[in-house]
C-alpha cells in the first residue's frame, strides 16, 4: 500500500518536472522576455523584467508586422481551406466507406498518396502561375487544400467505416434519395470526425509557413507565420529577442486562446480521430 503511494508521488513529481522543463520554461521564457527591453532581453534570463517594455514591444510589433492584416489573412485562408476540405472530404469518405466497387476502392488508395508522398511544390506553383493564381490568396487556398486532401480523406473514411448502416438502410427502403440520406442522416452522425478534422486541419493551416513562402510575396497578403519570418529573419541577427518573442506570442496566442476554451473537445477530438485511423 505505501509502496503504491510512493509510486504515485514519484510519478507526479517526474511528470511535473518534465512539464516544467520542456513546456513551462520555454513558454515562460518567451513571454517574460517579450516584456523586457532589448538590452535586458538579450541576456535571455527567465527572471522578471527590471524595466518593463511590454507595451512598447507589442505596439512596435503590431505596427511593423501589420498584425491585423496578417491576422485577417490567416483567418480567411484557414477557414476557407478547412470548409472546402470538409466539404469535399465528407461525401468522399462516405462513398469510399460504403461502396463495394473495386474501382472506387482502388481510387481510395490512390487518393491517400498525399499521406505518404510530399506535395510536388514546384510544379504546383508552375500550374498556379499559368492560371494566374500565383501570389493570390485563392492560389494559396488551392495549394493548402491540395496539400491536405489525402489526410482528410484518410481520417474521415476511417470514421465513416465505423458508422452504423441501419439508419441509412431504413431511409433507403423508405425511398429517400442518396443525397438526402447523406445530408440528413450521415452528416449529423459524422459530426465528431468533422470536428476533429477541422481542428487538425485548422491548426496545420494556421501554422503553415511553406505554402505562403512559395506563393505569397505581397506583404498585404501575408499570413501570420510569414509575417513572423519576415520580421524575425531581419532582426534576429541583431538579437532583438524582445521583438522576436513578442511576435511569437502574437502568432501563437489566437490558437492557444481557442485551445484554452475548447481544450477538452480538442484533445478528445484528436484522440477519437486517431483511433479510427
Amino acid at each position, binding site marked *: 500500500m505505501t509502496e503504491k503511494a510512493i509510486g504515485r508521488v514519484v510519478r507526479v513529481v517526474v*511528470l511535473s518536472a518534465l*512539464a516544467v522543463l520542456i*513546456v*513551462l520554461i*520555454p513558454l515562460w*521564457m*518567451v513571454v517574460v522576455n517579450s516584456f523586457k527591453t532589448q538590452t535586458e532581453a*538579450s*541576456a*535571455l534570463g527567465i527572471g522578471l523584467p527590471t524595466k518593463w517594455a511590454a507595451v512598447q514591444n507589442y505596439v512596435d510589433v503590431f505596427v511593423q508586422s501589420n498584425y491585423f492584416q496578417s491576422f485577417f489573412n490567416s483567418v480567411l485562408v484557414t477557414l476557407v481551406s478547412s470548409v472546402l476540405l470538409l466539404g469535399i472530404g465528407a*461525401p*468522399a469518405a462516405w*462513398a469510399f466507406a460504403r*461502396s*463495394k*466497387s473495386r474501382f*472506387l476502392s482502388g*481510387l481510395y488508395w*490512390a*487518393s491517400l*498518396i498525399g499521406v*505518404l*508522398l*510530399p*506535395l*510536388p511544390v*514546384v*510544379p*504546383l506553383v*508552375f*500550374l498556379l502561375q499559368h492560371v494566374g493564381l500565383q501570389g493570390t490568396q485563392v492560389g494559396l487556398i488551392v495549394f493548402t*487544400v*491540395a496539400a491536405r*486532401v*489525402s489526410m482528410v*480523406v484518410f481520417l474521415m473514411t476511417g470514421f465513416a*467505416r*465505423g458508422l452504423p*448502416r441501419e439508419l441509412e*438502410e431504413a431511409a433507403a427502403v423508405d425511398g429517400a434519395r442518396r443525397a438526402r440520406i447523406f445530408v440528413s442522416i450521415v452528416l449529423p452522425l459524422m459530426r465528431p470526425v468533422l470536428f476533429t478534422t477541422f481542428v487538425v486541419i485548422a491548426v496545420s493551416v494556421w*501554422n503553415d*509557413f511553406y505554402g505562403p*513562402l512559395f506563393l505569397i510575396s505581397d506583404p498585404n497578403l501575408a499570413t*501570420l507565420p510569414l509575417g*513572423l*519570418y519576415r520580421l*524575425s529573419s531581419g532582426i*534576429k541577427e541583431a538579437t532583438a*529577442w524582445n521583438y522576436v*518573442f513578442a511576435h*511569437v506570442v502574437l*502568432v*501563437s496566442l489566437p490558437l492557444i486562446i481557442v*485551445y484554452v476554451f475548447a*481544450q477538452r473537445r480538442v*484533445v478528445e477530438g*484528436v484522440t477519437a480521430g*486517431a*483511433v*479510427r485511423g
Partner: protein
Amino acid sequence: MTQLLRSEGDVRRANMGLAARTRRIRGVWWIFALPALFVVFGLYFVPLILNGFLAFTNWSSFSDNIDFTGWRNLQILLDQSSLLNQIRLTLLYAVTAAVVSNLLSFGLALALEKRTKLNEFFRALFFVPVLLSPLAAGYIWSGILSPNGVLNQGLGALGLPSNAAWLADPHLAIFLVGAVDGWKWSGFFTLIMIAALTTVPGELKEAARSDGANYWQVFRHVKLPFLAPAFTYNITVTLVGALSAFDIIVAMTGGGPGDSTRVLNALTLSQFGSGYFGLSSMTSLFVTVLVIILAIPLVWSLRRREFQS
C-alpha cells in the same frame, strides 16, 4: 485498429441480406467522391507527373523557353559534392525527430493512460507545443540553446560547464533541430498512443494479472501488441514529415553552421528562390524517390510485425 476492422467485417457478412437491398443504387457512389478525386488527381497526380518532366528541363527564371536537357539536372545535382551530405543530414533529422517524439510520447502515454483529472491536466499541458507554429517553436528553442540561453544558465546553476554554443556546433546542430521537431509533435503522438492503449480490453489485462503476470509481462504481452498500430502511424508520419522538413531549421539555424543543417528541402527552396526551377524540380523529385525508397518498405515491415504480434 485491426481488431476493429476484423469485427466490422463479421458484422458486414452478417448484414449481407440488408446489403443486397442497397446494392441496387450502387452506381451513384462515385459522384460523392468526385470533388475529392478531382482535387487529388488535378492537384497531386498531375503536378507529380509534371514534376517528372520539369526535372529534366532547363526551366528557369532567366529564359522564356523550357527545353529538355535530359539528365543534366541530375548531373548538376550529383556534381555538387554536398549532395550525399544533404541526404545524410535529411535522414539524421528524420530519424532524430522520430526517435525523440516516439520515446517521449511512449513514456507519457504509459504515465498518463488512466483517465484522472490530474492526467487530463498533464495531457492538455503536453499538447501545447503541438499548437505552436514550427517556425515559432524554432525561434523559442534557438533562444533556449543560444550561448547565453536558458539551457546554459541552468547548467551553470548546477555547476556544470555552461559555455557550449549548442547550435554553432556543426556535429550537434542537426540532432538538435531534429529533436525540436520531435518535441513539437510528442503531445499529439501521446494522445494517439493513449487512444491505442484504451483499445486493450480490460478483461485481457485482468486475466493476465490473475495468471500471475507482473507489470513488465502485462506490458510486453498485452499492451505492446495493441500499441503496434500507433507506433506504425507515428513513425511513418514523423519520418515522412521530417523528410520534407524545413520551417524549424529556417528558424533555428537557417541551414548553418556552414552547411551542417541544410537538408534537401532547404536546397529545393534555395534553388527555387534563385530561379533554377528545373533543378529545383529535380531535387524535389529526388526527395520523392527517397520517401518511396524509405517509407514504403518501412510501412510494409512495420505492418507485418504488427500482424505477427
